[in-house]
């Protein structure tokens, strides 16, 4: 064994532990890279120290954190959702609550448009009670609405915080809190209940007050309508949250409610509301209703159009009808109204209404009488006022009345006096009128002699002229007399010569009288004439003397009598 070897051995024995350390140190000095293990020891403190100094750390880390976050969401979204659900839940619920409140408004709009019976009834109710329409709708469609939530300190009955739904009546909150607390004590004392038996709800009018107990505070919800039992769970959850968030403030409450402002969101989440949407009228019903309305409307339209057309026609006809002037023509609610002037001689307007196809009762007409200057009416008026005989023809030319034909001198005289009094007539002309006087006519008639051949009762052609003249005079007389209210008595007298037997002669006389009567058209004479056919007296002036041929005759004897009904019986 060499000395060197021994020396080395000794050195190893003596310095072995230090040697290892030395090796390690040299190793570290040679290899100056940082060891993760070393870093891990100081990392948290390092972060803290650096983070306090400047924001560099955050800036550097942000992109990595972001990337990592995105990657995580991609990889396991579930975990993120689970993590943020507790934050999002309340926010979403609050948004929904707001939306529900907004619904009141949209109800109003939809109901404004809908014509449902219910909508109308509610409008009536709103009008009657003086409440806003929206409130009435709310009351009817509301299942329940948590209108106010009170967070109340249990021991003191003091109000910690209060939230109210939009538009809900907020009473004196502090007083109400005290009363709510007092009521609970009162009820508990009165029924001798143990402290853990509590009043959990009571009704006041249309409201229910729901009370949910917590260890230090309780929650009272003022609810309109009938809430579901699940609402209680929400109350309890909110209360638990509050107790968890504010343990100190609750245990050491000394009347300072300021810290409880933080419970606002929690309490607002309890302001649930649930509405029943108003039922929409079924589409089919609407269609049928609409269809019926359209049918009705069009039927009404057609009827109205027809009636109106008839009315217009009637107005045109009334306008062209002589003797009628329409001054007012209008349609009213119940029908039509007419006003105008009407000549009494004009056509009957109600007959015209019927002719036009209109219901007479639907037209109310007021006619004022007047004299029309229409020539046709003036002529008719002149005829009726002047009692013109049929032998006279009256015609109107402008304001001139012209008489032609023949008439008695009396009528002619009378007419000259009266004609200008006829409305519409100012001038009267009768140059074309032939006049005869009654005595003349009587004379002309009585002059008539119809001769016969011996033993014959046939009118000879030679006698026709005489007969014609007599007949003409007779007719004129009839006319003339009918004006003066007198009557004519006409005797047709037949006679014979002395030849032949008396019986035969009487027979012949009668036959001759009869023939002449027929030839005169006796049965066609006017009313004013009574005709008698008979025998001439033997003492007849014309036949008593002279030749035999002068005695085979028929003579006429016309006399005037005063009109007397009794005489009519004498007509053949």
């Amino acid at each position, binding site marked *: 064994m060499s000395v060197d070897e021994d020396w080395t051995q000794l050195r190893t024995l003596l310095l072995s532990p230090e040697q290892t350390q030395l090796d390690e140190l040299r190793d570290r000095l040679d290899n100056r890279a940082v060891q993760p293990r070393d870093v891990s020891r100081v990392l948290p403190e390092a972060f803290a120290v650096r983070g306090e100094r400047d924001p560099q750390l955050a800036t550097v880390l942000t992109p990595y954190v972001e990337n990592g976050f995105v990657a995580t969401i991609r990889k396991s979204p579930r975990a993120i959702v689970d993590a943020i659900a507790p934050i999002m839940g309340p926010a979403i619920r609050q948004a929904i609550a707001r939306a529900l409140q907004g619904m009141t408004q949209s109800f109003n709009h939809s109901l404004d448009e809908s014509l449902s019976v219910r909508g109308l009834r509610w409008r009536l109710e709103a009008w009657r009670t003086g409440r806003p329409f929206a409130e009435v709708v709310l009351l009817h469609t509301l299942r329940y609405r948590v209108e106010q939530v009170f967070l109340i*300190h*249990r*021991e*003191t*009955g*003091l*109000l910690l915080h209060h939230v109210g739904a939009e538009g809900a009546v907020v009473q*004196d909150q*502090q*007083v109400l*809190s*005290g*009363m709510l607390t*007092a009521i609970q*004590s*009162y009820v*508990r*004392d009165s029924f001798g209940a143990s402290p853990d038996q509590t009043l959990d709800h009571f009704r006041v009018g249309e409201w229910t007050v729901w009370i949910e107990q917590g260890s230090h505070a309780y929650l009272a919800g003022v609810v309109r309508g009938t809430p579901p039992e699940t609402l209680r769970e929400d109350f309890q959850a909110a209360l638990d949250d509050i107790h968890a968030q504010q343990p100190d403030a609750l245990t050491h409450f*000394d*009347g*300072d*409610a300021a810290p409880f402002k933080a419970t606002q969101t929690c309490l607002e989440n309890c302001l649930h509301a649930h509405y029943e949407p108003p039922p929409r009228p079924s589409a089919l019903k609407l269609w049928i209703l609409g269809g019926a309305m359209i049918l009705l409307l069009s039927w009404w339209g057609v009827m109205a159009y027809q009636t109106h057309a008839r009315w217009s026609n009637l107005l045109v006809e009334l306008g062209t009808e002589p003797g009628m002037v329409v001054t007012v023509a209008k349609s009213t609610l119940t029908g039509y109204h007419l006003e105008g002037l009407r000549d009494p001689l004009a056509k009957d307007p109600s007959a015209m209404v019927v002719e036009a196809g209109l219901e007479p009762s639907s037209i109310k007409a007021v006619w004022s009488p007047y004299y029309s200057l229409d020539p046709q009416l003036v002529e008719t008026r002149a005829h009726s006022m002047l009692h013109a005989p049929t032998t006279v023809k009256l015609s109107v030319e402008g304001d001139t009345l012209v008489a032609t034909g023949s008439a008695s001198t009396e009528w002619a005289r009378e007419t000259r006096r009266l004609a200008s009094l006829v409305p519409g007539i100012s001038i009267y002309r009768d140059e074309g009128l032939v006049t005869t006087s009654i005595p003349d006519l009587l004379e002309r008639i009585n002059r008539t002699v119809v001769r016969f051949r011996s033993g014959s009762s046939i009118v000879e052609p030679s006698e026709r002229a005489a007969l014609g003249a007599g007949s003409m005079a007779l007719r004129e007389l009839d006319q003339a007399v009918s004006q003066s209210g007198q009557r004519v008595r006409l005797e047709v007298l037949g006679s014979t010569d002395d030849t032949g037997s008396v019986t035969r002669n009487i027979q012949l006389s009668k036959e001759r009288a009869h023939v002449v009567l027929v030839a005169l058209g006796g049965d066609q004479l006017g009313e004013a004439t009574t005709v008698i056919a008979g025998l001439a007296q033997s003492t007849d002036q014309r036949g008593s003397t002279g030749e035999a041929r002068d005695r085979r005759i028929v003579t006429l004897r016309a006399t005037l009598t005063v009109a007397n009904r009794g005489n009519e019986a004498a007509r053949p």
Partner: protein
Amino acid sequence: MMQKKVCMLGGFAVGKTSLVRRFVSNVFSDHYHTTIGVTVEKKSVTVDDRDVMLVLWDLYGEDEFQRVRDSYLRGSSGYILVMDGTRRATLDAAFALQQTALQTVGTVPFISIINKADVRSEWEIDERTIEQLRERGWTVLFGSAKLGQGVEELFVTLATQIVHAAPIPRDCL
């Protein structure tokens, strides 16, 4: 705002409701409507430049038929013992009620008031008795709900005592 619960205690018809109404809405009525259960009222007063809302629990008056239940007293920051100077018996009721209060809410501030000072001549409670009360450590005030005498003072004094008795709030440290 700081809220404090205060109970009105005393025998029947001593004028608890009258004092509260005079204080809260400054009205007085000669008619007597006995309080059934509790009526809560509130009014804020200013103590050391800070507003304090007093939530007043006006309890029914105690008599031989009705004891005041301690459940109403719980949580009170102070209380007022009302006596009717014209009836000595209301003093005994006040004693009894003070005991109940002490047991329920402990040593919180309280003030006693002998009401109906407007009819002092008819008083049955004499000076000596009042002196004894003071010796016991009671604050004894005189007042008249009818005239409004001593009413404001009554409530403000109590509010001040309550605020001073309470540990100073943290945010003022």
